[in-house]
């Protein structure tokens, strides 16, 4: 579209700047961590001053917050939701459960490592993370967006086969639609 390297740089800068200030989070809670979202969003911590606010549907949202452990059953829905989201889209893994299984590491039906199934841009650790930690996670995401490093969605597209293989390993009856993004 724009061949000139310098103009491209300026366009990218403006694009990332505007993206970073309107992070809309899909209102979709899994696990226990979702209970930290209301205090983060409401007046005490007021995440909206960073441009973080809720979105009603996957198509309107920019960020998918995985707020805790995921059972295989939920993972299926989460993958579907993620694939319906439109670019730009980011994933934040929230809580120890998404990082290494947390205290459910030996549970028979919850996944342990989220980034095997979805591309995670930022992890927030803690069980569960307090709103300050959540805000710092969002700040981190903003930084990464500004630097153009939050490219999870691009990686997902590129390595779709690898992700699909991992997903299908625990979801044997794959009855999901293929999205042609």
């Amino acid at each position: 579209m724009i061949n000139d390297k310098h103009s491209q740089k300026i366009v990218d800068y403006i694009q990332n700047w505007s993206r970073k200030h309107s992070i809309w989070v899909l209102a979709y809670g899994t696990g226990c961590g979702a209970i930290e979202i209301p205090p983060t969003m409401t007046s005490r911590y007021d995440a909206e001053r960073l441009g973080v606010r809720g979105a009603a549907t996957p198509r309107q949202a920019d960020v998918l917050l995985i707020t805790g452990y995921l059972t295989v059953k939920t993972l299926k829905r989460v993958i579907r939701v993620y694939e319906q989201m439109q670019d730009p889209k980011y994933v934040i893994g929230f809580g120890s459960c998404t990082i290494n299984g947390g205290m459910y590491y030996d549970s028979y039906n919850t996944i342990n490592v989220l980034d095997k199934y979805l591309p995670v841009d930022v992890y927030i650790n803690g069980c569960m993370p307090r709103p300050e930690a959540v805000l710092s996670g969002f700040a981190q995401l903003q930084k990464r967006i500004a630097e153009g490093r939050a490219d999870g969605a691009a990686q997902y597209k590129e390595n779709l086969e690898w992700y699909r293989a991992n997903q299908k390993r625990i979801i044997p009856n794959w009855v999901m639609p293929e999205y042609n993004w």
Partner: protein
Amino acid sequence: MKELKENIIQRIKASFADAKERNDFSDNRVDFHVKKETIPSILFYLKEEMGFIHLSHISCVDWLEEGEFELVFIVWSPVDKVKVFVRTRVDRENPVMDNIDMIWRQANTYEREFREMFGIQFTGLVAPDEFILEDWQGPPPFRRDFDTAEYAEKTFWNRPGREDAQDVRETISGRDGEEIPDFAKKYSR
């Protein structure tokens, strides 16, 4: 209250020869063990004749060492304010049980759960195969011989570094010179 309890025990014993009473010190609780064939008739009798119209709970206990599952049916009478526990044992190798959802429809949900979580088959149970677990591939997960940690490690990768966390308590106690008794070491992870 005492007489009421005695009265209930006598009535059940008179009607069901194989009902063995178990000691229960609470005044509003009666505890029986019966053969598994008796379950539908004793529950029907309790509901229709004695006013125990409410099925509070069905629970299942895995007695691995004895090779049996124990099913506990808890019924409640709102008039007498008495609870009756009816217990029975089912063979673990071939767990087959009578379906009681024609007595209480809500039993259907419990039975589906036991079928999925313990692998107990209920004769004549009409319900979809899957209950809570979707696409489950392993053995029934609530059985005690099912090793969840091993299954989780095999199915969902463990992130390296997790092992470190196992002796947190030992590390801390080593630093502070705290003594951990032997029995507690087992739980110190």
